[in-house]
């Protein structure tokens, strides 16, 4: 009972995500961050270890209820690392890097158990979280600010569907460069239509094509710029369905594929495309073939998958607010973002 009560904050978040009350990943990240700030300032915890347990329970809850939601869990995972760091800082026992020598010679007693109760921990954590929030909020602008480094004059850029980050990125580039954008409409949800209208309104020459025309169009495209749902630990992507074909076509024509991603989309998770059941979710087939199709629906199977796995070899560059990185470097970014022990919760 006690447990249930404690989890009311996270269950509210989960239900909001489920019911699409919060849609963009940035909003999810900010909500999760608020949630943790609340937890730190008001929660029932005495030591860092207790706090970390509270956070871990929440991560587990999210994982159970929303197995495909990475953003919220990633934000919390990052905060776990923040807690560890702050604790080490406060307790003046910060280990300066972990060299092999130190690992071997470490005494069991030296390993931190985070059980000490520190007075300043709460305030310093709240300070840190406020900073983190600013970082989250400005992340989109920081990514967009790099636009002019990646887009040159008179380019043709292809993008798929709608991504807030990509939209900002292109609009920011449009201020200094003239280029054309080809938007893939991304049926059956047609987010591409919205994206195209938005881009055209900011005076970018926009062409809308159907999903089938990607290969034909790709021979004229200079760059593919897309958003993603998550970046996996191997540098691959879990992105909107259809993007795998786009990336393959880009590879075929040697067109660079740039993926814009906030840091909280980097997930310490390995999945292959072979395991679609674990990896993917199928949305309602009504968007693919309407229920009005009638009797025929009884005898056919219709799939409407939401995600595509894009292997890392098809991704040229991952652009976060810290700058661009090759997908092979993701492992390192992950170790900066999260603590090794928190990868698998």
């Amino acid at each position, binding site marked *: 009972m006690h447990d249930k009560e404690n989890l009311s904050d996270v269950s509210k978040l989960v239900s909001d995500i489920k019911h699409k009350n919060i849609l963009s990943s940035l909003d999810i990240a900010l909500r999760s961050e608020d949630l943790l700030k609340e937890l730190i300032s008001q929660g029932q915890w005495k030591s860092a270890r207790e706090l970390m347990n509270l956070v871990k329970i929440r991560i587990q809850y999210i994982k159970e209820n929303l197995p495909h939601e990475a953003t919220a869990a990633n934000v919390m995972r990052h905060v776990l690392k923040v807690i560890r760091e702050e604790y080490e800082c406060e307790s003046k026992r910060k280990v300066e890097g972990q060299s092999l020598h130190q690992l071997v010679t470490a005494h069991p007693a030296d390993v931190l158990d985070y059980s000490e109760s520190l007075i300043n921990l709460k305030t310093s954590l709240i300070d840190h979280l406020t900073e983190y929030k600013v970082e989250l909020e400005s992340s989109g602008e920081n990514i967009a600010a790099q636009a002019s480094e990646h887009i040159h004059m008179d380019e043709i850029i292809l993008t798929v569907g709608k991504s807030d980050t990509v939209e900002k990125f292109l609009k920011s580039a449009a201020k200094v460069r003239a280029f054309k954008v080809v938007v893939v409409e991304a049926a059956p949800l047609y987010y591409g239509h919205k994206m195209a209208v938005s881009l055209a309104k900011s005076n970018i020459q926009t062409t809308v094509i159907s999903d*089938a025309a*990607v290969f034909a169009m790709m021979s004229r495209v200079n760059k593919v710029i897309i958003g993603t749902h998550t970046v996996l630990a191997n540098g691959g992507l879990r992105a909107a369905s259809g993007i795998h074909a786009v990336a393959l076509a880009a590879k075929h024509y040697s067109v660079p594929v740039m993926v814009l991603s906030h840091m909280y989309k980097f997930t310490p998770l390995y999945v292959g495309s072979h395991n679609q059941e674990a990896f993917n979710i199928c949305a309602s087939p009504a968007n693919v073939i309407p229920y009005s199709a009638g009797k025929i629906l009884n005898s056919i199977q219709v799939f409407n998958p939401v995600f595509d796995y894009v292997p890392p070899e098809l991704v040229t560059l991952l652009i976060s607010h810290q700058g661009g990185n090759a997908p092979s470097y993701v492992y390192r970014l992950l170790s900066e973002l999260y603590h090794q022990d928190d990868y698998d919760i």
Partner: protein
Amino acid sequence: MDKKKEPLKKEKVAEDGLTKKERRALKVQVKKTEIQNVIQVNETIVENKPNPEKEKQKQNVSHKTNDTPNDPPVSGKLLSDKELRKLEWEKKLTDQKTKELESVKALSKAELKAKRREQQESQRSAKTSSKVEPTPTKTPSVNIKQSKTEPKKSPVQKQIIRKTIPIQRVQLVQHLYIDNSSESNDKNSILHNKVHPAFVRLGTQYSNKNVLGSNARCLALLAALKQLVDNLQTPPKQEFCRYLETVLKSCTNYLQNCRPLAVSMINALRNFNLQLTQIDTNLNDNEKRIKLQDVIDIYINDDIRKAGEAISMRVREKISDGDVILTYGCSSLIRKILLEAHKDEKKFEVIIVDSRPLLEGKEMLRRLVVAGIKCSYVLINALSYVMNSVTKVILGAHALLTNGYVMSRIGTAQVALLARAYNKPVLVCCETYKFSERVQTDSFVYNEIGDADLLRTTHTSETESPLSKTKDMNKLMPLNLLYDVTPPDLVTAVVTEIAILPCTSVPVVLRIHADEST
């Protein structure tokens, strides 16, 4: 040798069509500048000349503005001369526009009549004015006539203007748009002169996409051709075959205006023309008719029907129990193969991949389900989700090009690409009569542009597309290409009636065909 010359000619015609268009556009432009130079004295249509696209619109506008200043009676030799030119120009414009309108929608008979009357009238007025020119006393009568014709024109014009303004063109494929204004010039004359009603009907069926798919289009063409041969009456002092040639030429030009000819149709027509030249001139008309009908029947039977059956047999050998076959869109040949394989009591599943905006796959789905085949249906974005479970990919083709590229409905290349990524065999089924001498490496040089407005809709979701209200946005253009080309390295094999071949064998097959027919 003959065979080789023929194709060249054919292509030239197509190319000529384009250049002619351009030439005509140029002429209009020159004329316009001339007129403007004259007009500039009195009127203020001093506009610098922008690109041809805008110019056309401007012509409409300037034309409209011209109407009003024309009305007040003017006298004097200088003016009448000017007037004459203006009239001519105006007439040209109206001609152009009426035809433009026609290409957009089929006119009712009454409208057609009215238009013709109008044309005649404007012609007459032009004539009288030219006759009258030197005598200033008669000019008022001309003006009266003009003012009579004006109110009649205006409703037509309004419609035209509405139709022409939203034409937006994607820079990259500007050469692919059919220029209705100049093209339909001859169309109108054809409409009243030589085009056989069967071809007129066929033309509307093509342009409305009632007849889809290169096989169906070719069969429909041959049926119309048979009708033409049957009904054709040679005028005195003309040889049947020669006359048929000229008639057929204007018919195909008309069809070309409705929708560019498919490769299958071009090849069928080429074969027919070849037979036409080889026919014995000593026969009487009726014997020639029977002979030509036979030629067409043999072509339909051998090159299309029997070829399809042979391909079907070959592919059925390759389908085994437990197969999961992925196919894209709705190809009549593939449908036939799958249905026959099902009749053979092979146990297999079919995954039908479909794409917007045509959603042809739904028809395929319906027919296969009715036959009792187990089917799955996905849109093209879900390809990588289903590709893992697929064992064979079977695709139809619009044409096979000499460099081994497969030209087919848009999206085929993408399916082949994904199949390659998952290491699944890709079989392309194509009768050899669809092999073409053309070479092409991208999908832009030669392609067809469909109705872009289809992309402004959403087919399945209830909500309206945000694009539907953006027709006046000149920065936003939907592009609806109909074909793409698949590079040969993505295709495992091509199944033809001769054999299962690699893509690179196309020129060999073409050479054998050429040898056979000479």
